[in-house]
């Protein structure tokens, strides 16, 4: 039997997530799954699809500041490319505090070490989600985010 994730009733003004991947990653099943998952949690999702250049992500996110940016990548280049993505996002004042998470298969070895996690958080990610705990970790993180954009800072909510 499939795992069934609990559904949340959509609030009147749903929180908005930008869902993206790194520029070299062509995989999309992970993005489709996460879109459905976030929507079931009551989020509105802008799914940017495969191979998103960093400037496209920054442009989309800056045009309408989201409540969350999720970077999902499984091609093994995440450790290489995602730090640059985080720095570019954090360099935009409007996006400096938006919760920013990355997950998937981040390098070619299949086991993401603590050094990779540290490099990603140093670059500006609030959470690095890999392995079997990635989806439960994301759900827990969503629960910890504020219902509305005003109030306490998003960064505090996920750190």
């Amino acid at each position, binding site marked *: 039997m*499939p*795992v*069934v*994730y609990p559904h949340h009733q959509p609030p009147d003004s749903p929180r908005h997530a930008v869902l993206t991947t790194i*520029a*070299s*990653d*062509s995989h*999309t*099943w992970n*993005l*489709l*799954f*996460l879109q*459905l*998952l976030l929507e*079931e949690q009551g989020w509105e999702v802008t*799914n940017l*699809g*495969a*191979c*998103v*250049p960093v400037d*496209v992500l920054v442009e989309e996110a800056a045009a309408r500041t989201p409540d969350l940016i999720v970077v999902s990548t499984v*091609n*093994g*280049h995440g450790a*290489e490319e995602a730090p640059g993505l985080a720095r570019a996002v954090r360099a935009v004042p409007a996006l400096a505090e938006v919760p920013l998470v990355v997950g998937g*298969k981040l*390098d*070619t*070895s*299949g086991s993401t070490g603590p050094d990779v996690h540290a490099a990603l958080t140093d670059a500006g990610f609030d959470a690095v989600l890999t392995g079997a705990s990635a989806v439960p970790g994301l759900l827990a993180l969503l629960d910890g985010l504020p219902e509305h954009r005003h109030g306490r800072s998003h960064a505090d909510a996920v750190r």
Partner: protein
Amino acid sequence: MPSAEPAPAAGAFHRFMADAARVGALVVQPRMGFADPARMRAGLIATRAADATTVGTLTLDSFTRVGDYAAAARAAAQGHHLNGYPLVSMDRETTTGLLDGVHGPGFPVQVRHGSARPGRIVEALIAAGLDATEGGPVSYCLPYGRTPLATSVRAWAEACRSLAALREAGTEPHLETFGGCMLGQLCPPALLVALSVLEAKFFRRHGLRSVSLSYAQQISPEQDEEAVHALRALAADHLPDTSWHVVLYTYMGVYPETRVGALRLVADAARLAVRTGAARLIVKTPAESARIPSVEENVTALETAAAAARTARPAAPPPSTGIEAEARSLVEAVLHLHDDLGQALVRAFAHGYLDVPFCLHPDNAGRTRSFISDRGRLEWSRTGSLPLGRSTAATPSRRLTSSGLLHALNHVRNRYDDPAALLGRAG
């Protein structure tokens, strides 16, 4: 002046496949790529030495695939692990050096990449003395990025002409469609067959005379057998004056995690290939579900496939469930849209005559959906504007959810990783 006919004698990949067809051996091939030239060479040598009829593969890295050659060069120079060989960023001598004494008439090497703009890759492979690659204007565009379909069509037309120009120098180049593998899983077979045929026709119209048509193993052996027979029937009708064969891909979706399950899946793919008259098989390895496989894991997969192939015999097609008729409807409808096949493909996607379920590309209409039926077959739940003549959409029992999608994506993994399945098989 060189004459275009008869077909040139040289062309390592073309010649090897023609010879293998005469002997009747299934050719098996890995999907192998490493950034380090020494490791890449070792991988090719091990592929050649495997106990199987093999051809070699240079799979390129993701930076090269999206055209970021500078990033590929930088990562390779710093010794970072790339997920393939950065062909365009390496100097030609490095590539010819790694191929020297390995690539040749007895062991051709195909370049696999995934690029919607393959011009530089085709230039580089020709410069390195290679003559075979794969892809297609639709299959290397829609699933893999944001390049507009019209841009990919133009780039692929140009790349086909560059490759076809090898004929003037006496080499018969070979190009394989990737259209039979769209998104790897959950695409109903008739659309895979139609796309593979349309891309092969596109290659033929842009000068190629030696092509292969791909089809990726899906979830039902009976449905796959019917589909490959349909692909061969359509290829025979649509590719006159062309040397062609079918290449089967071992399941491209979420792969079994257990070693026994993974090897059983590749063995089933090999038997499917032999039963349906496919000439070549792309294998996957037990490591596939977690990471980039090692050379040894690739060799094990190649030898497992070859051993399974020896136990199978060609078989008559199963009773029709309409795959060939559906595929023909799609192909004919697209061909009627424009005399120029590239223009026809662009219009077909704009009209939703071709519409790949679950594909997020902006040029895909996104009005179709598929599901796994209770009989364990891939069926349409929404056919959108597909010109199928009749409504062939069935009704799934419930709406699509994240867990339902995950369950469908894991259908094959779960089946092959289940130890009870082994017992059922033996009984």
